[in-house]
Every structure is written in C-alpha cells, then in structure tokens.
C-alpha cells in the first residue's frame, strides 16, 4: 500500500527530461510507420526479396515502437499492456502471412475435436488413476519424510547414517529407472508388485526423500532459543518437537512441499512406462486407437488445468510465509 503511494509521488514530482520528449516525438512517428506497414504489406504468399526487405523493416519498426512504449514509465499501465498486445498481434500477423506453416494440417492433426468424440471417458478414467496415484504417493511421502526428518533431528549417529544413505540413494536415482526396476526386476526376487503398487512405491521412495529434506530444513530453521525455552520448562524432547518445533517448522515448509507435490503429480506420468493406465497412458492409447496426436494435446490441457491453480497457490503460500517469518523474526 505504502510503496504504491510513494511510487506515485515520485512519478509526479520527477521533471520530464529531454530524452522524454524524444520518446514522445518518436512514439507516434514509429507508430505511423507501423500503421502504414499494416495497410501496405504484401498479401499472403511467398514474398519476393524486395518484399522481404519491406517486411523486415516493418518488423524492426514494430519492435522499436514496442520498446519505446514499454520502457516509458510515465505511461499508465494499461498503455504498456496495450502496446505489448499490439506488438504481439502485429508479429503474429507477419508470421501468419509469410511463414510456410501448414495451419490446416496442424489443426487437423493436433486440434481435431472430431477425434476426441467418444474418447473422453477413457481420458477421464486415466485422470482418475493419476489423481489417486498422486494422492496415495503424496500422503505416503509426506508422512515418511516427516518421520525421517524428526528422527534425524535427534542426531542419533547410527540412525542418521541410515537415513542419510536412504535419502542420498533415492534422490540420485531417476524416477523412471526406479519404476522400471521395481516393476520389471523385483518379480525375479519374488516381490511382484502390480503397476499400481509399483507406481506408489517408487513415487513415495523418491518424494519421501525430498520431503525429508524439506522438513529437515524447516526444523533447522527454528531458532535454538525455542528449543531451549521449551526444555527449560521441563518439556520432553518429543513434546518440544511436537508442540513447539513442528508447528512452526510446518508453516515454513508448506510452500516448498506444495511445490514438490506439483512435481509428484507430474511424475505420475512416468507410470505410463509400466502400463499403469493413468492420464498419459490413456492419452497414448487413444492416440493409437484414433491414429491422431490430438489426444496428446487434450492430456496436456488437463495437466495444465489441474496444475496451474496448484502453482498459483504455491506462490500465494510462499508470499504469506515470508510475511509470517518476517513478523516473527527477532
């Protein structure tokens, strides 16, 4: 709030420089060039070399005009937005007219709504599998990670050796390799896990390590004085952890853990290599069935729809967290 007011004041009191009048003069001049360009550019089709020169001059003018418009702090925000949108529209027009992109062919392959008819139920069942797989793995990895971090914080040398070995090992193995090994190799040892169990186990193994590290950094971020005050009151080490350290540490850790969960949800796509019918696998099946890549785009859209709000939420949490840490810092 305050900073806004301050910025506004500064803007109002700064005297316009000579360079600013240059701006003011150049902006309409270049703008006119661009407007003329839009009217007199050659039509759709392969341009001649001379026309190419014209087009390049036009593109450069557009970029110059956008740069001028966008770097002018005195112009209101909507003006910069308009300038950016305008420049993008002009460049898009040039690309549309003169590139040899095959729009129709691309639309037919990748954005063919006809193809998706009757395929949505399959895709959605895949989505259901993706979400359950992610949910089980998320709960397991957060719980295991929390327990590992708490045990680790008690600094037992023997236990910690094992925990650190576990974390280092599973953090350094690619998820896809782990999943394939668990699904295809473990049966030779008499441990036959289905695709579902293999997916949950491998995702949990990898992400529990990430969460253990996240919780550890959270626990370590709590000031030593907190533990001292709690112990001095006669609280046991365990109660100190439960009542004092963890409630504070978890607040610190929520944003990074949410971020990891985004990665976990995306990681479920790896389970398509072990024939688990999750979203990507279902998409691939529909692709084969309909002989069209459109389902891939549909799957992409679904991932976007699920994950975008998630990612926004991480940012909001992070900002709130920073405020909280600042207000409690001494």
């Amino acid at each position, binding site marked *: 709030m305050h900073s806004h007011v301050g910025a506004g004041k500064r803007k109002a009191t700064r005297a316009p420089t000579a360079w600013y009048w240059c701006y003011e003069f150049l902006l309409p001049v270049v703008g006119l060039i661009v407007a003329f360009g839009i009217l007199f550019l050659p039509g759709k089709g392969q341009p001649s070399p001379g026309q190419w020169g014209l087009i390049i001059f036009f593109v450069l003018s557009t970029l110059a005009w956008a740069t001028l418009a966008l770097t002018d702090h005195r112009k209101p925000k909507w003006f910069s937005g308009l300038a950016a949108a305008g420049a993008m529209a002009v460049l898009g027009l040039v690309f549309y007219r003169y590139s040899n992109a095959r729009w129709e062919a691309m639309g037919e392959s990748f954005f063919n709504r006809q193809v998706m008819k009757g395929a949505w139920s399959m895709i959605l069942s895949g989505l259901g599998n993706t979400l359950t797989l992610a949910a089980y793995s998320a709960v397991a990895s957060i719980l295991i990670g929390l327990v590992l971090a708490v045990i680790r914080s008690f600094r037992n040398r023997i236990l910690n050796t094992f925990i650190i070995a576990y974390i280092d090992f599973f953090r350094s193995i690619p998820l896809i390799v782990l999943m394939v090994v668990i699904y295809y190799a473990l049966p030779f040892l008499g441990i036959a896990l289905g695709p579902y169990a293999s997916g949950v186990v491998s995702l949990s193994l990898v992400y529990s390590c990430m969460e253990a590290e996240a919780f550890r950094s959270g626990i370590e971020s709590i*000031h030593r*004085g*907190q533990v*001292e*005050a*709690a*112990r*001095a*009151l*006669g*609280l*046991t080490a365990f*109660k100190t952890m439960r*009542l*004092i350290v963890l*409630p*504070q540490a978890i*607040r610190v850790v929520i944003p990074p853990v949410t971020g990891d969960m985004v990665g976990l949800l995306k990681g479920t796509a790896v389970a398509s290599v072990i024939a688990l019918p999750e979203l990507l696998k279902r998409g691939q099946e529909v692709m084969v069935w309909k002989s069209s890549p459109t389902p891939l785009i549909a799957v992409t859209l679904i991932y976007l729809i699920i994950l975008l709000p998630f990612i926004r939420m991480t940012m909001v949490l992070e900002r709130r967290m920073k405020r909280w840490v600042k*207000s*409690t810092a*001494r």
Partner: protein
Amino acid sequence: MGEEHGQVMVEAIEIQKYFKDLHVLRGISTKVMRGQVVAIIGPSGSGKSTFLRCLNRLEEPTSGEVFIDGMEVTHPRVDLNKVRAEIGMVFQSFNLFPHLTAIENIKLAPMHVRGLNDKEAMERGMGLLKKVGLVDKAHTFPDQLSGGQQQRVAIARALAMQPKVMFFDEPTSALDPEMIGEVLDVMKSMARDGMTMMVVSHEMGFIREVADHILIMDGGIIIEEGTPAQVFEHPTQQRTQNFLSKIL
C-alpha cells in the same frame, strides 16, 4: 534474606566447563539460600551466562555438581525434565513461542508437564498475566507485543510452573531503555514475594536495591562476592575495581 533462613536452595560445587579447548568455567562453587536474590555480574565473556545455563544443564558442565533444593541435577540418572520443571528460566531474547498467544505460551508447560487441565491452567495463567499487568494482552501473539511486554509474558510463563527458583539470563539487555523499568518492576515484586532468584544483569540500580548477594565473575571464576554494599563500596580486588569503574 528470606524468612526460612539457612535452607540451601541452589548449590554449585566446583563447576568446570570446556567448549572444546576453551576453559570457560574454572571451578565455580556457590550457595544460594531460599528466598535469596543473587546477582551475577562481570565483564562479557566471563562465563556468567554459561554458569547459569550449567545449573539447569542447558549447557552440560564438564565436571562439578549442582543441587537444586536437595535434588542432584548433575546425577547421571536424574530425571532432567522433572528438575527443570522446578527451575524457571528467563532468557535475554525472551524466546516466546511465536505460534502461540500470550496465554497459550503460559498454559503450555503447566498442561503438558504438570498435567493441569485447561481450566486450571487458564486460571493460573490469567492470574499471572494480571500480576505482570498484561491481562488485556492474553490473546495477543508475541509479534504484536513490545519487547518489555514479551519479557513480562516470558516471566509469567516461567512462573506458571511454580518454580522453586528463577534464573534470569540478562533479562533486560535486549530491551529498549524505556521498557527496562517495567520488567525490573515485575522482578522486584517477585523478590518481595520471597522468590529465590539468580540474576545475570548489569542493571546496577536494580541490583543495589534488590540483591542480597553479588557474585563478580571474571575469566571463569568468582573473583569477589558479598553484599552489594560490601562489593560496591569496598571492593577488595583490583579487577573488581576496574570492572565497577567501567559500569558504575
């Protein structure tokens, strides 16, 4: 001196403390009687805080024995949590729990260590908040309190355990000057109520007024001790004189 004259509340015998190769405490012995207020002063790095923290084993003494009201704190098989429940500790940086309100800070230990129910703890907590003059701040979080208010809540939190002795580790050093008085006033009233107190502090006015006994530490030993009058008016050691001339 307190009424029950002669009953030893705190006894330290030959406390030694090393941090790696650094010899911080070089054999400290002292006795504090019930109801007595003992001030510990000395130049920084002299081991005052470390000594205090050794008494409830927030620092592990390298050797030596500590008794609190007859319990051997340094016994290897002692139930340390039980001992610490009897010792109130107030820190320089308050160390209130930032995720809990003032009253929750105070209620926590009585409920989870002493086993009081919520109602009893609430009653005790509000009584103490009244005593430190912060009833209206009961449901305020620490970050909304001034330093002086935070320290008074911290004192109430320690008192809620009904400790036999209170340790103060530079309770006013982190405070803005205008807030020191309110904290010292609370401590004075505790002293009047007969609380046994050990205070590391440089508030000479407070010490002169309240302390029964002063320990002056330097280089990990007690170089001089006595009543405030003895120590301030007739210091016997050159080092004491040097130190006092700097702070008085």
